[in-house]
């Protein structure tokens, strides 16, 4: 029963490295998954070189959504903001390393949607954002 909740997920859920908030910040966006009440806010600071210098998330929800947020932020530190636009569903699934059914997929992908909506400066975090480069 434990393969799905690989230790890494429980670990990132219990001891997240990027939990918190950044004020001031350059990019900030929040949204939620009404199905389960997962709520996540992501703040980014971007350096003069266009690269993510600091990142933090806040909110509450299931282990999958919180671990996904933590792993995702870990993966983008130092990356060019434009690179974030190319992140997809697959990248998140690789980070989590597990297979998920449709309902839990929404939890796993919520942080990416929020991150991309913030980077694109959109008003809404839609499912389209989970595909390559879409806005």
């Amino acid at each position, binding site marked *: *029963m434990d393969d*799905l909740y690989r230790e890494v997920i429980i670990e990132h859920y*219990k001891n997240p490295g990027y939990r918190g908030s950044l004020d001031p910040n350059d990019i900030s966006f929040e949204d939620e998954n009404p199905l389960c*009440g997962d709520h996540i806010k992501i703040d980014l600071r971007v350096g003069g070189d266009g690269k993510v210098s600091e990142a933090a998330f806040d909110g509450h929800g299931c282990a999958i959504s919180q671990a996904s947020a933590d792993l995702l932020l870990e993966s983008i530190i130092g990356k060019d903001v434009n690179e974030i636009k190319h992140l997809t569903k697959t990248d998140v699934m690789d980070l989590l390393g597990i297979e998920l059914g449709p309902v839990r997929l929404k939890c796993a992908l919520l942080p990416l949607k929020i991150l991309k909506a913030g980077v694109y400066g959109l008003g809404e975090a839609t499912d389209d954002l989970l595909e390559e480069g879409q806005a």
Partner: protein
Amino acid sequence: MTAYNVEKIRKDFPILGIEVSPGVPLVYLDSTATAQKPAVVIDAMDEYYRTSNGNIHRGVHYLAERATSMYEASRAKVAAFIGADKPKEVIFTRNATESINLVAQTWGRAFLNKGDLVVLTEMEHHSNLVPWQMLAKEKDLRLEFITVTEDGELDQAVYDQWLDQGPKLVAFAHMSNVLGTINPAKAMIAKARRAGAITLVDGAQSVPHFPVSVKDLDVDFMAFSAHKMVGPTGVGALYGKEELLDKMPPYMGGGDMIRKVYLRSFTPNELPWKFEAGTFCIAEAIGFGAAVDYLNSIGMDAIANYEHQLVQSALIKMKTIPGLEIMGEKAAHRGGVVSFTLPGIHPHDVAQILDQNGIAIRAGHHCAMPLHDKFGISASSRASFYLYNTEEEINHLVVSLQKVVKMFS
């Protein structure tokens, strides 16, 4: 009374024998969402399609007549099951949700007016909230809510206050799909009637689980779904008193619900067909009839007793789990539903880890967001029991929940 033989009953349900992954048998504790189906129900529909399929009511050939009489026989069975006097007081619908929408859109649109008071409760399923919100917006109605106590019961003093204000309609769940609370429907209906209100009972969770008689309740409308009472998806029912149904305008327009059609006008058909437009859920209605036969063969009293034992045992055993809190635990009357939370562990995680142990429970708001808001949470886990569940399954649930707690600690 012969002893309740759950092992024999389980054999009637093919799905209960499956494994969700090699070596992991299914433990189905989600009957409140939808019940499993005995072979007799599946076979009734199968058989219908293989030997009797035809469009109903209008045809004079062998298949049309067979299908029509099977369909109408099912209506009579469903009517008898809920103690309705006349089969024509049972309208087939897609599900309990549609039954409630039907009342809102026909009776409600015709007979409710600006400022009229509609009394609902805080424990309603979305199906008994949203249709009234939509109507309230359209017609400028006033919605008020009977509050839910800490114990998970309806606050009858609050109800009395609303009754004093002369509501036109009181609509509430017979049994909560989250708390398991069985509301004192008969007394509430009697009070509503004295106050001059029409009553609607959402029987989605009561009709499947214990004997319900619309006559004894003296309710005006009752909604329920076949799929929650070992019947198929795609069919439900609305019970309505004949004199009310007669006065209501039709719902959807189309074939079968008409008596005569001209280019610019039509006259509606008689009850019950007035409310059944187009080719209806024929096979599903037949499956519904078979489901009712099956439940009768076990006996609704026996089912209710057995579930009561199961849930009492589950409540005791589940409370041994550190931190586990049960929503509405103290309700005086409750059915086989246990919604709970574990501190620091999201219900979705609980459900998913249990799933890997073969245990199917539900996690989320169970279509009752306002009730969860009331309890200050956004989601809960829910285990629910039906005629085919066993004590061993409860033990398996408890052991698995202990493991979940350990994983997260």
